[in-house]
């Protein structure tokens, strides 16, 4: 809480395709935006391009907050730093063996590449037992020999991962102390350091992810900060973590694994911030892009956080992260008719190349985006901008041939069918996410963003009985906005694993106090102005004998055992409709999140007030026929007004059907829905009865 932040705040998020930027100047209220192509070989170039494109004045900027996919991409593509592992004798294959699974329930093919190859996984004699007692002392000569062998192999980063180090880290700490003397750099990760919990595979993978992306992230951040300094920037660079909080660039590489999933997390943080200002604390976020859709749950303006994220098959990263689930389809999902004559949408995707037919990059298979085009939901004029010169007729012919003929439908009906099936599947997937987190979708609003989210949101809300949809002012740059509004955040999990009747509440209170103090100290280290500090407390509980945990939020840390039992039983009954009076409860984890909230930012300028028109008529670009379903059967064309988002008058209201277009997305408002605008430039759509 030292130091001062003044000047404009920049959020810049590097995604797979685009690098997005928002600059907010709290003193003048001015907003600058940019969207440029990502430069994935060196993301810094894209960041600098975006700063240039937006016209940011580097010497005058107060703060840059950065979301990066450097680490996520490195893990998914296994483009990792050469990393060695030193582990307990007998256990070097833990990272390769995993937990004895397969990628899909059906299909006996499967492939898995461990993060560290077997010849770089070395063993040394040492052993702790489960209670933390040393059964075999650490063989320091063998350790040093192993260290030299890995250096000779050219390893840049090192993991030290010993069995039961969560119970007693002494051997890991001693090994790190010895090896720091010979290792050529700072890139040494101890297994217990990021995650001090049992389960050797999950802890080992988390440590291996950290080590194998650390040098990459470190180099990247150094390069970026040097470039920025050269441009005259004098402020702090903060980097988004997957928990939706940020840390300073100087420290981010130490816990590099925490930056995985930072992009999706920042989108969810922006949603929480926007929703809280709009009076919508309970949100299901729905980010539909070209190839996939991300869904997350926000309760009371707090995103759901999980410490059991699995990045892909057999790649668990067990540090607290915003619980973002990838579901269902994207705009590029391909529709086809099965040999049984049923229409299926996805899971295959046309991706970015060749992409949907309407991209004009050679795509020849019908996708969700193409269906939206045929139904008038996407602007057919957009086709003119396409290099390949694709005509609407061409798209229609493919729909008639590939889908219409086998289904006995003409092209428009086939396109409508694709949308209906896709929406049913996406709605089902969203429902499963919310149900698995113990939430009824009807208690939430749908927060739609991403390039394709607002096109499908009203239909999905109707399908899920969600009463309203919230579309932020700038759906295409939500992740960058998340960087601008994010707080400093540190999450702590302490395992107590104690039956409630044996719990001394004072122990729990001590744990909470320790977590809060540590979090506040970490926040104080950063050179960032903080408005308030919030602490969120929760416990993970279960009935004795269960393995699954139920998270119980606490209003205050100083609870007694009776209160915990009552809160748990109530939460359990709400969730499962099962009351188990005779079985005792266990308190497994005590959790505390310490959040340093930054100054409130005014979002009202995200839509330039000067561009707003006085009346809806003035904001209307054109009218065009758009196809809408009516009830569960049939549908038809409606003459539909098309508005330009930036021109909509402040505080407008309108009734569907309508389309709202803006630079990077299109919002579809169905017949019977009521839309209105608020001061932050959000559009809120109240879902009407099915037409």
């Amino acid at each position, binding site marked *: 809480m030292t130091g001062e932040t003044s000047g404009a705040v920049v959020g810049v998020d590097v995604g797979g395709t685009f690098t997005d930027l928002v600059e907010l100047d709290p003193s003048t209220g001015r907003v600058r935006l940019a969207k440029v192509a990502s430069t994935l070989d060196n993301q810094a170039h894209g960041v600098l391009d975006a700063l240039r494109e937006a016209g940011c004045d580097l010497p005058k900027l107060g703060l840059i907050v950065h979301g990066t996919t450097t680490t996520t991409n490195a893990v998914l593509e296994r483009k990792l730093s050469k990393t060695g592992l030193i582990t307990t004798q007998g256990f070097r294959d833990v990272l390769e063996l995993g*937990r004895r699974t397969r990628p899909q329930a059906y299909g006996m093919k499967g492939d898995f590449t461990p993060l560290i190859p077997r010849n770089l996984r070395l063993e040394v004699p040492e052993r702790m037992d489960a209670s933390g007692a040393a059964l075999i002392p650490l063989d320091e000569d063998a350790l040093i020999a192993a260290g030299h062998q890995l250096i000779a192999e050219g390893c840049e980063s090192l993991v030290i991962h010993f*069995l039961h180090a969560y119970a007693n880290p002494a051997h890991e700490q001693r090994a790190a102390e010895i090896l720091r003397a010979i290792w050529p750099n700072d890139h040494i990760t101890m297994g217990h350091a990021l995650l001090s919990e049992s389960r050797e595979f999950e802890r080992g993978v988390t440590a291996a992810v950290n080590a194998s992306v650390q040098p990459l992230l470190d180099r990247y951040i150094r390069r970026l900060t040097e470039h920025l300094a050269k441009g005259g920037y004098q402020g702090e660079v903060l980097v988004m973590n997957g928990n939706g909080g940020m840390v300073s660039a100087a420290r981010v590489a130490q816990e590099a694994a925490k930056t995985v999933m930072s992009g999706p997390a920042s989108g969810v943080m922006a949603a929480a911030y926007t929703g809280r200002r709009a009076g919508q604390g309970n949100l299901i976020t729905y980010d539909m892009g070209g190839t996939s859709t991300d869904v997350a749950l926000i309760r009371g303006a707090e995103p759901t956080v999980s410490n059991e994220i699995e990045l892909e098959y057999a790649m668990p990263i067990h540090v607290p992260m915003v619980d973002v689930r990838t579901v269902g389809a994207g705009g590029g999902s391909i529709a086809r008719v099965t040999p*049984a004559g049923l*229409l299926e949408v996805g899971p295959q995707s046309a991706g970015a190349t060749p992409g949907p037919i309407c991209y004009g990059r050679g795509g020849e298979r019908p996708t969700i985006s193409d269906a939206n085009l045929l139904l008038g939901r996407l602007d057919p004029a957009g086709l003119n901008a396409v290099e390949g010169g694709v005509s609407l007729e061409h798209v229609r012919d493919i729909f008639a041939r590939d889908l219409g003929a086998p289904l006995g439908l003409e092209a428009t009906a086939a396109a409508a069918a694709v949308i*209906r*099936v896709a929406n049913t599947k996406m709605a089902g997937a969203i429902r499963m996410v919310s*149900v698995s987190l113990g939430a009824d979708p009807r208690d939430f609003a749908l927060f739609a963003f991403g390039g394709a989210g607002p096109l499908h949101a009203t239909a999905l809300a109707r399908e899920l009985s969600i009463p309203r949809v919230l579309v932020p002012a700038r759906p295409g740059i939500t992740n960058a906005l998340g960087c601008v509004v994010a707080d400093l955040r540190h999450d702590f999990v302490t395992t107590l694993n104690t039956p409630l009747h044996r719990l001394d509440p004072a122990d729990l209170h001590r744990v909470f106090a320790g977590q809060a103090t540590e979090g506040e100290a970490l926040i104080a280290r950063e050179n960032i102005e903080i408005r308030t500090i919030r602490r969120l407390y929760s416990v993970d509980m279960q009935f004795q004998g269960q393995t*699954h945990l139920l998270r119980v939020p606490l209003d205050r840390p100083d609870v007694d055992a009776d209160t915990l039992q009552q809160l748990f039983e109530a939460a359990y009954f709400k969730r499962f409709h099962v009351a188990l009076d*005779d079985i005792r409860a266990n308190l497994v984890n005590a959790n505390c999140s310490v959040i340093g909230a930054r100054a409130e930012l005014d979002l009202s300028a995200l839509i330039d007030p000067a561009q707003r028109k006085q009346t809806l008529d003035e904001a209307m670009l054109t009218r065009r026929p758009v196809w809408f379903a009516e009830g569960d059967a049939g549908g038809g064309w409606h003459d539909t007004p098309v508005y330009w988002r930036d021109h909509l008058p402040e505080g407008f209201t309108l009734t569907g059907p309508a389309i709202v277009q803006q630079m990077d997305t299109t919002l579809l408002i169905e017949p019977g829905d009521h839309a209105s605008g608020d001061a932050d430039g959000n559009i809120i759509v109240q879902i009407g009865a099915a037409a």
Partner: protein
Amino acid sequence: MSLDPITLSVIQAGLQQVCDEMDLSFSRAAFSPVIAEANDRSDGIYAAKDGALIAQGAGGLPVFVGTMQESTRILVERIEQGITPAPQPGDIYIVNDPYLGGTHLMDVRFAMPFYRDGGLYCWLSNTGHWPDTGGSVPGGFSASATAVEQEGLRLPPVRLFKQGEMDSEIYAIICSNIRVADQRIGDVKAQAAALLVGEARLNELMDRYGDDTVSEAIEELRRRAAIQMRAFIADIPEGSYCATAWIDSDGVVNEPLEIALRVTRRGETLSFDFTGSSAPCAGPMNSVRATTLSAVYLAMRHIFPEVPMSAGAFEPLEVTGIEGTFLDAHYPRPVSGCAAEVSQRIAEAVFAALVAPLPDRVTAAPAGTSGNFALGGHDPERGRDFVMYQISGGGYGGNADHDGLSNGCSTIGISKAPPVEIMEQAFPVLYHRYALHEGSGGAGFHRGGFGLDYEVELRRGDARASFVMDHGRTGPQGVLGGGDGAVNRVTVWRDGVAYTPPHLSKDQDIPLAPGDRVHVRTPGGGGYGAPLTRPPEAVRYDVEMGRYTPAQAAEMFGVALTGTPPVVDAAETARLRRR
């Protein structure tokens, strides 16, 4: 047809959603780790008149893909025959009888009638693996049982819930016959609550689309699943394809059991003729009819995962010749090995028969054993008895796309193995090794995956070790010229002396003292294609990774290597491969 294909797709997704929510509810609320963690359960919707599968949760254990419709069909028959009392709203039947459409006794099925407008519309049913149902050994996997009574309590279909209330008298009988009964109430409530979730969601679906439309859709989906399966069958050239799979022994009589399979594609039907398979056996390696059918169905679903789970998908599949064999055992034959082992060997036979006509889809044989090692004993430090289970994976078969996966789970399961750290927290044991079973992957153009090699020591007290595993005599089969994967090996070190079970992969109640060790090496997967065609660089890499020795590279793949790290000796390799 009056129903449009789009409404059909939408209702199909809706029915699937109902089942998936039942699965989720069951797992999350269950106490038994076998259900909660290992997902050893399944939930579905079944036809009122014949129990035919309408929809089943995507996350259900594969082995239940066919058993639950058999179980429901038999329940419906018994109600019609007046053997079992007819249902009333709010009733839930419980049944675990293997011979009435089941697997082993531990798989307990619940079935609830679903009513619309006062009439029985369909059945909602689920299966959950209970940790214990009584019998001679904790957990029910007795390797030497010779009658089902030794395996546990057998329940015919009875109404555990009557008009929404649990019958505490029946429950008391169950509790008096099983171990750790106090926690079962949590599982019973979770299993019943999942059915209620299904009831609520199915009612919503039917209210929305109308009962007639949903009925019509169910009928049409069944018809179309059959069409889709027939379309896949049509890709198989007409003719017969034979294969044999072997089970080491039944655990009692030390002789191999044979599964003889002839798959014939005739028109749009695929028939699976098991004539010539071994007679019912004395020990627990018998299968019951429902499990045998299910094993064939799940193998076909591994080959064609695209076909939706519906009774229609099974219609073009015909299973014959099981009468009088150990694949259709009757009371009182012991059956505890049917779900975990015999079913996997049936699937292996299906894979082995169909790999020639479907070489792109079918893999070489996977390890195909659940690798069940149980250790029961007394821990003096904690003053209590314990039962520990170690399940383990093995190598998967090489296939057209790539090498086999290492340490994959059983063919019929999807469950994770417990971490070593959790095992050592809970039980008085110490693992000395948990490693790749080097050299175990069968040779091939794409080699098999590797098995697991672990060694565990009893630290204190006394205990008895039991094993129900397989592939100890012969390794998982290689295909299209590929070599077999390595066999399963069990060695027990007692007082420094090695003991190998006479049945190799099965044994019971081997006494252990502190310091004694159990060493298990699980099978590797079969190889796919001729080993001499594997690129020498791929062989060299495996040797650099220590997965094979240079001697194995020469012997199994005809690749000569020199030095460390190894380098391919091209001339010598050419010479070896010419031979």
